[in-house]
């Protein structure tokens, strides 16, 4: 089942104003940077973006924020972005902050047909406001609902023509769950190989979850906190 599309233009066809997008990545690690750059070019507006972070000023989702294409962010941590903070504090941008584990699990649930689950995270905090509380094992838990998106856009290291994906190191992060939760899932990959070249034991995201795959033109892979030791 060939899922290959020619390029980012073809991959992103159908993304329209007011849609909900999931975007993989943690910080700038494992983000679909080619797709994000093209979303800016497309100029789609009023997007709801589900992404653990919101990029930085001038890179990643920061680009979409600067061009004011985002109506609402659903994230766990947005601390690296001045423009984000400005838009949020001024009320231009709606923001829904979610505990990171709940965000990951809600995306997984969305892809797995689990409409809701109980978690202890956030009990007793403002995250729990308006949410059902139930005691399990003597501990209060809150009910969290699944998240899905019109499009999920993920970035993988290797992918094959059938849409099977392998991620590298910690660039895996949110990508596998989000890949399951998009009505249409788009994967941009560093290396695109023929079906059969990836070991079926090693595949992180089976192709069934991916509708379109393309080789990204250029991966800058910017590092947020270059931290080193001396030899």
């Amino acid at each position, binding site marked *: 089942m060939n899922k290959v599309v020619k390029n980012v233009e073809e991959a992103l066809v159908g993304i329209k104003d007011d849609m909900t997008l999931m975007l993989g990545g*943690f*910080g*700038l*690690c*494992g983000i679909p940077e080619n797709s994000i750059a093209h979303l800016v070019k497309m100029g789609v507006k009023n997007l709801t973006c589900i992404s*653990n972070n919101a990029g930085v000023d001038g890179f990643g989702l920061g680009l979409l924020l600067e061009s004011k294409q985002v109506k609402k962010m659903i*994230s*766990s*941590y*947005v*601390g*690296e972005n001045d423009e984000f*903070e400005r838009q*949020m*504090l001024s009320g231009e941008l709606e*923001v829904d*902050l979610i*505990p*990171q*584990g*709940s*965000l*990951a*699990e809600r*995306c*997984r649930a969305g892809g797995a047909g689990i409409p809701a689950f109980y*978690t*202890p*995270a*956030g*009990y*007793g*905090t*403002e*995250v729990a406001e308006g949410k059902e509380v139930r005691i399990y094992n003597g501990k209060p838990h809150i009910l969290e609902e699944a998240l899905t998106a019109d499009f999920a856009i993920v970035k993988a*290291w290797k992918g094959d023509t059938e849409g099977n994906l392998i*991620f*590298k*190191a*910690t*660039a*895996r*992060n*949110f*990508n*596998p*769950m989000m890949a399951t939760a998009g009505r249409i899932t788009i994967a941009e990959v560093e290396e695109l190989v023929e079906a059969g070249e990836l070991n079926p034991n090693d595949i*992180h995201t089976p192709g069934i979850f991916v509708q379109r795959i393309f080789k990204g033109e250029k991966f800058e*892979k*910017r*590092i*947020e*906190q*270059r*931290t*080193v*030791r*001396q*030899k």
Partner: protein
Amino acid sequence: MALDKVGIAKRIAQELRDGWYVNLGIGIPTLVANYIPEGIEVEFQSENGILGMGAFPFEGEEDADLINAGKQTITARKGASFFDSATSFAMIRGQHVQLTVLGAMEVSQNGDIANWKIPGKMVKGMGGAMDLVASAENIIVAMMHSNKAGESKILSKCTLPLTGVGCVKKVVTELAVLEIKDGKFHLIERAPGVSVEEIISKTEGELVIPNNVPEMVL
């Protein structure tokens, strides 16, 4: 004399036990990894998806695809594994991680912690902190006893939006080691040369002082 950040990290490192999986938060907690007591082995989990986190890479060997939860470039130890965020928080929520060390803006005597938001001022998000504090059996907070204005952050009740309720077991500051039990802070140790009186004066929450308060041995 009050401890510096390294001193706090060293004291917390004494809490590590052989065979533990440990999650270290950003800031002082990260430093704990540098002072693992001799003869014990612990494994560090970072919630963005690695178990077996190693030292920072040598210059020129950074890999953009290999970072910790603080977005710093890291390395992987032998026997490391990578996994997605759902699996990572399955480890945390499922209590497979034996110790969580994290920073705080405020801690209260019933174990509440606030460390993610100053309304109208700083709204960066909770990241994984709420999952960590809601699930971990063993949470140690690394923090300064007072804020820059000199006000105590060791409180009877938190004033900032909470990250979790009744979850903190132990607090290590530049002045003291406090255990939280029965809705009170219990002074367990004081920093070398720091008087019990100083700790009392800088602690707003209810403080239980035993007859003998030993100095930390670092």
